[in-house]
């Protein structure tokens, strides 16, 4: 029977506001959680897939020991596709000519991701596509010139002879490093044994390549982790480009925005549920007087909440999923091979958020409702229920819990929560001060102004919570707006239009003049020349690096060092480099500046002496500085920079870079013909990729800003609604006492304008403080004041609060006095 009563009351209640406010708040919470986590996952997955293409696999296990069939078997049992490759440096002989090359031997299924493109030709621009076959080698284009041979000729590798079958046009997991290295050769894995190159102690890199769906990959990785040997390690998949950094910042930002959205939505739900309960106190007392038990009351009102929760959950999840689909579609637009994986995680997170919000913010006031004493039926309904301290505690804990759940970062969640709590405290104190200050100001004002100020004082005093939520809502909207601008600006600065997109490597001293002429003739702006000498780090403080292969192997990234380091000498600290310890190379001789990560891995400290072997000659240098390098910048970066006195005498090659418009790429072919030994490395792909991400994330950010603004608006609506009854009573009395419409309107508008200005001002101060903290701590941006904020905040506060207040209360002003009085008397 209670169900039919509950159902009937529910339908009638829908026509009043609070249930919708609760529903919309929960909808926003669910929708934002689902869409944000889904979008983040989608963008991340797109980037992982891109980086998988650059790694030729979803996961790569590297080993210094021969392939273990058990690993391959385990991967295949997990439903993964597998491939293997070996990589080693070896001499190639073509008659009397020899050349050191990096040989990559691949199995049939290579590559698992991305595409390997080989052509039956010495020129990448012509010839048929072919697949690597046993008995054949494929060369990087410059190797044909270096060995002075052509397609079809025979070369010796180890003790075996091979036919050179063609040229490598595209190798998915080729080093993106602007340094290049030795020319590259691809062969079939089955031929390696015949070369007899693999001997005990040979330096061979073995790689297991895996591809498959995320679940299978994760489960395989977990199983493998427990049995990894000291020789095996997973390859880092996404550190090599600017993308990793851009995405990490975007993820943090989305996370932050998501948290703020949830906090706001939870506030709106709590306010609306509080008012719902307050308005139903008398109805509950009546029903109880008529014989209802507490359990029946809880069933009746609990079912209302449950219906609202289910409705919001369904709509929120649907809307969130639609947003995710839209983003998948958008990503697919930029990235043709994108495989959108469906994930339950966003939906699960959304459900959990909804239930936590509903239980800890909305259910508590409704639960308390059942405790209303039946005797209340004989009393006047209270205008304001006393503050529920337990609700405050539960609510606060729930907000923190959600922050933790959503971010997965304990420190961030505690920090953000404490900041919010501190802000609430500051606002409370600020409100108290303003209320005191407003009293003397009110004296001597016109009566409408006096009424507005009096109203403001009384309500502020009685319910400072309102000012806090207004301020918090405006604060969050402002914070998000400015952070968004900050973030997009920073990304755009990172790759400004016209950044070098073509790098030239292996330029000899003589070729510099030719290149200079070519650049002048074609109106190209060449960048700085970086000299490069390849050398080996042999000792640290007289300690010979016997295990140098292992140590270097660990640092070997595609942008990183190989077995030989690229050494340069510079007198000035390059851009994107920052000395973190010691001093940049000063006038003293024989110094070296070491990049901080490699310094840490090799345990190199200031004052250590490093010994290098360059072309058989030994030299040593003292570490005078440790540098932090921005690997995200598309600039040549060096692990070791030596003082000019050490290297200037060695024969060096040079690296330089220039910007080439997309429509002039034909010039690269001319350049290749002019200087065949110079490698051209185009980073256009990376730049385009980063720009794509910026475009996508910008759309996502605007979407989040919209969600936050909606949530903030909802909090304002819930708050104004919560004072509706009290306002009705006051208006009825004022009307009865003869107050005219213009007087009441002016008083109301003034009250909301002042309230909005106050909330806007508080919000501005807090937003500026928070921006400065977040700017430095989270985004690592320089300290900078936001002048626009100082007018936008108060203006936004005034306009928003006044418009929303007026929108909700204007009807109340138009009700004739007698009718209003009757409404108030009838409750």
């Amino acid at each position, binding site marked *: 029977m209670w169900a039919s009563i509950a159902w009937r*009351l529910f339908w009638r209640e829908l026509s009043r506001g609070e249930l919708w406010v609760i529903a919309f708040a929960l909808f926003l919470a669910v929708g934002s959680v689902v869409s944000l986590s889904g979008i983040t996952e989608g963008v991340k997955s797109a980037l992982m897939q891109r980086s998988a293409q650059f790694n030729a696999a979803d996961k790569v296990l590297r080993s210094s020991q021969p392939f273990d069939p058990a690993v391959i078997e385990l991967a295949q049992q997990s439903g993964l596709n597998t491939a293997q490759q070996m990589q080693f440096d070896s001499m190639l002989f073509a008659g009397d000519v020899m050349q050191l090359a990096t040989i990559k031997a691949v199995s049939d299924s290579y590559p698992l991701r991305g595409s390997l493109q080989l052509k039956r030709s010495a020129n990448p621009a012509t010839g048929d596509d072919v697949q690597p076959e046993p008995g054949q080698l494929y060369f990087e284009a410059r190797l044909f010139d270096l060995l002075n041979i052509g397609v079809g000729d025979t070369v010796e590798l180890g003790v075996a002879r091979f036919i050179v079958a063609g040229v490598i046009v595209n190798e998915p997991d080729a080093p993106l490093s602007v340094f290049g290295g030795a020319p590259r050769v691809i062969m079939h894995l089955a031929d390696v044994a015949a070369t007899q190159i693999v001997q005990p102690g040979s330096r061979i890199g073995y790689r297991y390549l895996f591809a498959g769906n995320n679940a299978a990959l994760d489960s395989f990785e977990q199983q493998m982790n427990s049995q990894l040997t000291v020789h095996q390690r997973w390859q880092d998949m996404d550190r090599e480009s600017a993308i990793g950094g851009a995405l990490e910042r975007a993820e943090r930002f989305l996370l932050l925005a998501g948290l703020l959205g949830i906090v706001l939505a939870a506030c709106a739900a709590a306010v609306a549920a509080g008012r719902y309960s307050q308005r139903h106190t008398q109805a509950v007392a009546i029903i109880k007087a*008529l*014989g209802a038990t507490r359990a029946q009351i809880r069933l009746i009102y609990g079912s209302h909440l449950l219906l609202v929760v289910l409705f919001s959950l369904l709509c929120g999840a649907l809307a969130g999923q639609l947003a995710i689909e839209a983003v998948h579609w958008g990503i697919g637009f930029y990235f043709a091979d994108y495989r959108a994986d469906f994930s339950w995680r966003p939906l699960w997170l959304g459900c959990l958020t909804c239930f936590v919000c509903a239980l800890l913010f909305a259910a508590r006031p409704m639960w308390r409702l059942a405790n209303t004493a039946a005797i209340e*039926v004989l009393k006047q309904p209270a205008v304001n229920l006393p503050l529920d301290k337990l609700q405050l505690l539960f609510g606060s804990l729930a907000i923190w819990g959600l922050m933790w759940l959503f971010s997965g970062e304990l420190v961030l969640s505690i920090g953000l929560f404490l900041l919010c709590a501190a802000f609430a405290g500051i606002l409370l104190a600020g409100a108290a001060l303003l209320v005191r200050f407003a009293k003397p100001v009110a004296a001597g004002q016109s009566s409408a102004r006096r009424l507005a100020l009096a109203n403001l004082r009384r309500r502020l005093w009685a319910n400072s919570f309102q000012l806090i939520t207004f301020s918090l809502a405006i604060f969050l909207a402002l914070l998000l707006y400015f952070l968004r601008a900050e973030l997009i600006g920073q990304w755009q600065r990172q790759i400004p239009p016209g950044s070098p997109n073509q790098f030239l490597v292996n330029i000899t001293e003589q070729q510099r003049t030719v290149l200079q002429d070519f650049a002048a003739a074609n109106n190209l702006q060449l960048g700085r020349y970086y000299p490069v000498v390849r050398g080996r780090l042999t000792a640290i403080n007289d300690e010979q690096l016997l295990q140098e292969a292992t140590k270097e192997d660990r640092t070997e990234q595609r942008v990183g060092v190989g077995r030989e380091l690229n050494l340069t000498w510079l007198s000035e600290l390059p851009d994107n480099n920052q000395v973190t310890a010691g001093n940049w190379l000063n006038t003293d001789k024989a110094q070296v500046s070491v990049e901080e990560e490699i310094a840490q891995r090799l345990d190199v400290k200031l004052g250590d002496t490093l010994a290098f072997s360059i072309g058989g000659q030994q030299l040593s240098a003292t570490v005078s500085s440790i540098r932090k390098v921005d690997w995200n910048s598309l600039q040549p970066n060096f692990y070791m920079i030596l003082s000019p006195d050490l290297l200037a005498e060695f024969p060096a090659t040079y690296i330089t870079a220039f910007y080439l418009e997309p429509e002039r790429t034909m010039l690269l072919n001319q350049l290749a013909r002019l200087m065949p030994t110079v490698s051209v490395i185009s980073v256009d792909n990376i730049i385009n990729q980063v720009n794509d991400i910026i475009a996508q994330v910008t759309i996502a950010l605007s979407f989040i800003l919209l969600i936050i603004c909606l949530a903030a608006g909802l909090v304002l609506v819930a708050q104004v609604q919560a004072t509706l009854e009290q306002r009705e009573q006051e208006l009825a009395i004022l009307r009865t006492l003869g107050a005219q419409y213009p007087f009441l309107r002016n008083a109301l508008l003034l009250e909301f304008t002042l309230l909005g200005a106050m909330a806007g001002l508080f919000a501005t101060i807090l937003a500026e403080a928070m921006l400065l903290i977040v700017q430095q701590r989270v985004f690592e941006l320089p300290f900078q004041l936001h002048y626009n904020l100082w007018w936008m905040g108060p203006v936004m506060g005034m306009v928003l609060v006044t418009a929303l207040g007026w929108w909700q209360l204007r009807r109340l002003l138009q009700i004739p006095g007698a009718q209003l009085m009757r409404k108030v008397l009838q409750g």
Partner: protein
Amino acid sequence: MGASGSGKSTLLSLLAGLDIPTSGEVYLAGKALHNLTEDQRAAIRASDVGFVFQSFLLLPGLTALENVTLPAELAADKQAKQRGLALLQQVGLAERADFYPAQLSGGEQQRVAIARAFITSPAVLFADEPSANLDAATGQKIEDLLFKLNSDQGTTLILVTHNNDLAARCQRQLRMQAGRFVSDDVKDMADVG
């Protein structure tokens, strides 16, 4: 009977089990209310007690019929609707069964409240100033209706009022002052109108 603040409503709330005394004992229909939990007292109210309040106290979200049937539905009475319609017929509001309280006049709302009070055939009916919020003529009609239904259903009616005429229609009049009884007049049944 008694003046404002004399303790009439407090006494009524104690008698009906809406509240419990800080000291003393209250028995209703043989049950010791002061020893019962809130939900046990609610069960007694559901089975043995009816209420008519001064300010009607109908649920604005329910129609006249739904307001009348509410106590019966809480007690899981399957005949609630038929009984509710019959009672609305008796109070002359059968045509307004689907009206909401806001669409009814004060007198009509109180008639709905009376119908609601009788739907569970309570042993005791408590009425708190049932005609105080109504004009004299309507008040008179409401009182007549209350006494008629009371007599038809054989209910014990306990009325709180400061209206001497209304009090005069009761079998026993207890007068209160500052929380204490100051007089107790019992009339013959023949005198009660």
